[in-house]
Each structure stands twice: as structure tokens, then as C-alpha cells.
């Protein structure tokens, strides 16, 4: 039905182990529905390709077979790997998709029959032409730190391709706003996740937040979380959160992990991507803020 009135359609599905919300605004309900359908299909496709749990995903195929012989993956998977490897190089291994063996040993990923080499890192992953991937040693990768952001970017692309001009996609807190309508986005309180610590207004920008509040648990008498420093293998345990705003959600998603570990030292990389960062301490007070451009969203702190 076409009207002149601006309507918004908003849908939510359990996907990627979290809740994925897609909203589009326009004047034609049927066309919005089609766009939202295409957006969820794109997220589902990313899930099918990059799930650690699905034995037929590219990720599982690589973990099984990319050592000792190279295998071919989908171009989307290749693109995520390429970005992950770039961030690994730039962060000197702080961002490392090969930390999955540590995640499995701490109970965040199912243990598989894989027998990874304990010394293997991102440096043992080789990306060749025509979407070929080769592992130099047996290793286990997990794209959990970046694939959600990529899924958001694909969903936004699918909405745009279906003619949806403005909307938002939010995959469990990693989100991207596009089109002429800006959105107010609240950021969870780092220690009290059912409270908001503050808010920003976003337009044509993605934002991702990492914190340990829902994921922290005890392991061998210590708190652990799925946020790992790839260099030290240590889990983030502090109840702080890191938010990063960037043009692409995949970039914002990956950068939150790097800022978590490197804080101020991540400034160069943030600048490269014209990204902004905000670290909230346990009491929700900002302890570090990085503004790379005039696009920096205004942060409103609640107290």
C-alpha cells in the first residue's frame, strides 16, 4: 500500500546467537517488507558461512581442512578474513581470529575434535587469490569478533538494494544507521547492563560496543570473558565497555576489541578509519575518548 505518510517497519529475529533487529522507513509498506526480508536473508547467509557451530560453514571447513591443503571459501568469508588479517597485522596480533582454541578451553565455544597447534596464530593464515585459504599449521579460527559487524553491513546493503532509503540494523548491540533519518542510540551501563550510561545521535554511521557484562563467568576460580587479547591470551575481566563509531559496522566491531586491549595506543588505527572511540569505566564515567573527525557523534552522559 502506498501512502504519503512516512511509516517505519521494525522486525526482530533470533539470529547469530543474539537478536537481530531490522528497521526501515518509507512510504510503501510492501517494499519495506521486501527489503527487511532481504536483510534477514543476508544475515542468515553470513551465519551459514561463518558460524563456528555449523559443521558445513566456511569456518568449520577451514578449521577441518585448510591445513594441510588450501580450500576455497565464499567471497564474503574471504572479505572478512582479509579485514581480520589486516587488523591482526596493524594491532600486532592483539586482534587474532586464531584464538578460538582459548575460547573453547574457557567454555565459550564447543570443543571440537580439532587438534590445534598451540603456537599457531594469525600469521599462519594465508589468503591466496580466488578466495583460497591456507593454514600453515593446524589452527582453529572463530570470526565471532567481526562477523556480526559484517552481517550488519550486508543487511544494510540488502535494504538499500531493495530500495529502502533509510533505516537501522542492530545485531545484538552492533548497529548501523543509514539514510536521512538520524537515530538516538543508548549505550549500556558497563556494570549495570539494564541501565543506559548515555546516548548518542547517529546518522550514516555504524557503532559497536564491547563489554563483558553478559558474558563474564568464572573459570578455574577466575573471571573470564570471551574478549581475549590475542598477544597475551588474557581475558578482559573489568566491567568496562568500549564503543567505536565508524562508517562500516565490521570495522567498528573489530576496533572495539583492539581498543579494549590497547586503549590509547589504538588511536592511530582509529584515525586511519576515521573512527571514534569511547571507553566507559565501571561507574559509567568516560575514561578515554577519541574523536577522529567532525562526524563524531555527540555523547550525552547520564549520571
Amino acid at each position, binding site marked *: 500500500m502506498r501512502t504519503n505518510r512516512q511509516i517505519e517497519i521494525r522486525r526482530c529475529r533470533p539470529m547469530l546467537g543474539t537478536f537481530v533487529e531490522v528497521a526501515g522507513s518509507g512510504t510503501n509498506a510492501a517494499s519495506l517488507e521486501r527489503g527487511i526480508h532481504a536483510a534477514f536473508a543476508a544475515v542468515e547467509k553470513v551465519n551459514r558461512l561463518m558460524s563456528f557451530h555449523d559443521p558445513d560453514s566456511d569456518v568449520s571447513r577451514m578449521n577441518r581442512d585448510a591445513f594441510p591443503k588450501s580450500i576455497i571459501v565464499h567471497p564474503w568469508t574471504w572479505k572478512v578474513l582479509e579485514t581480520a588479517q589486516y587488523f591482526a597485522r596493524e594491532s600486532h596480533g592483539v586482534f587474532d581470529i586464531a584464538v578460538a582454541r582459548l575460547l573453547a578451553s574457557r567454555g565459550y565455544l564447543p570443543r571440537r575434535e580439532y587438534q590445534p597447534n598451540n603456537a599457531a596464530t594469525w600469521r599462519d593464515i594465508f589468503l591466496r587469490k580466488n578466495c583460497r585459504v591456507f593454514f600453515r599449521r593446524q589452527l582453529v579460527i572463530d570470526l565471532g569478533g567481526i562477523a556480526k559487524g559484517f552481517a550488519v553491513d550486508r543487511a544494510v546493503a540488502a535494504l538499500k538494494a531493495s530500495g529502502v532509503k533509510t533505516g537501522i540494523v542492530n545485531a545484538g*548491540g552492533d548497529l548501523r544507521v543509514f539514510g536521512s533519518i538520524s537515530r538516538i542510540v543508548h549505550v549500556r551501563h558497563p556494570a549495570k547492563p539494564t541501565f543506559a550510561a548515555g546516548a548518542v545521535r547517529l546518522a550514516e554511521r555504524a557503532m559497536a560496543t564491547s563489554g*563483558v557484562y553478559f558474558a563474564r563467568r568464572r573459570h578455574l576460580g577466575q573471571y573470564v570473558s570471551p574478549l581475549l587479547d590475542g598477544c597475551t591470551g588474557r581475558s578482559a575481566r573489568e566491567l568496562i565497555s568500549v564503543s567505536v563509531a565508524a562508517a562500516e559496522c565490521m570495522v567498528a566491531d573489530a576496533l572495539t576489541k583492539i581498543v579494549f586491549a590497547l586503549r590509547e595506543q589504538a588511536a592511530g588505527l582509529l584515525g586511519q578509519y576515521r573512527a571514534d572511540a569511547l571507553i566507559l569505566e565501571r561507574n559509567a564515567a568516560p575514561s578515554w575518548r577519541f574523536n577522529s573527525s567532525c562526524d563524531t557523534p555527540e555523547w550525552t552522559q547520564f549520571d
Partner: protein
Amino acid sequence: MKSELAFIALPISALVAPSTFAVQYLTVDQAQHAVFPGKSFTAAPVKLVPAQRKAIEQASGVRVLRDDQKVWRVSGGGWFIVDEVVGKHEFITYAVGLNANGSVKQIEVMDYRETYGGEIRNESWRAQFVGKTSQSPLKLDRDIKNISGATLSCRHITDGVKRLLAFYEVALKRS
């Protein structure tokens, strides 16, 4: 983005903002047509007897908290079920469409609500919150629409769907 959005920190005193995050995505009627476009629906609610409850719990490994299940029969085959799950932080109503052979066709979240901080239950406190926000430069809504933050897992829905598939085997398959 426009220049007025240049970075400034704006502390708003006396404004604690519990995440009153609550969204209704779909009514029952809308969910039915989102999952099974163009079909008609006949209500076929089920009341479980204790033996059925037990059978579902054994098959799914998930506790059954309610005896009554909201079910609709779909024209041309298939089932539409509305269910609820409660987690530590969330209360969710969702719909599951089952194909005629009992496989999952689609899952849609209908209502999503996160538990509030204690203060928000107090209506006068709420009113104060609304008043304060009208002065805020962001013109904050009473309800939070978008949240950036670490992932809340959808494990409870995954368990709920497991329970509903066992429910199908026990209560719907042969009906």
C-alpha cells in the same frame, strides 16, 4: 553529520536512565501474516495433561512452565504457535511457524522487553524522568529504541523452540 553534533560532553544531572527497552514488533495477527503470507488461521489452543508435559520435558530437556499453549492451524498445512520465554534480563513473546512436516519455517520476535532498574516501576519517578528529558538536547524518548552494547544471548528462545518442537511431536503431530 551536521556541525551541531560536534563532540561535547553534556552531563545531565539527576537523570539516571534505566533501559526501559521494550518494543512491540508484531501483534498476533501481524505475526501470522509475516510468517504465513496469504494464509488463514484457525485457533487450536492446547491444554497439556501432566503426562504430555513430562514427555515434552524429557524429549527437549527444557522445563515446561505452562499447561496452555496458543496454537493456530494454518490453511493448507502447518502450525502457528505463540510462546513466551523469560530470561535473567529479558521477557520475550515470539511466534514460531511450523511447516506441515513439523520443521521450523520462521521465528519472529513479537514483544521484547528488558527488565528495568527498580526505579522505573515508580510512576512518579517515571514522570520526573519524562519531564527532565524534554530539556535534554537529545530530546530523549521515554522508551529506548536502540541500544549499543554487548550481546544478549538468544539462548532462551533457542531452548523455547526446542521445547516447541517436542510439543509438536507430543501434542500436534497426530491431530
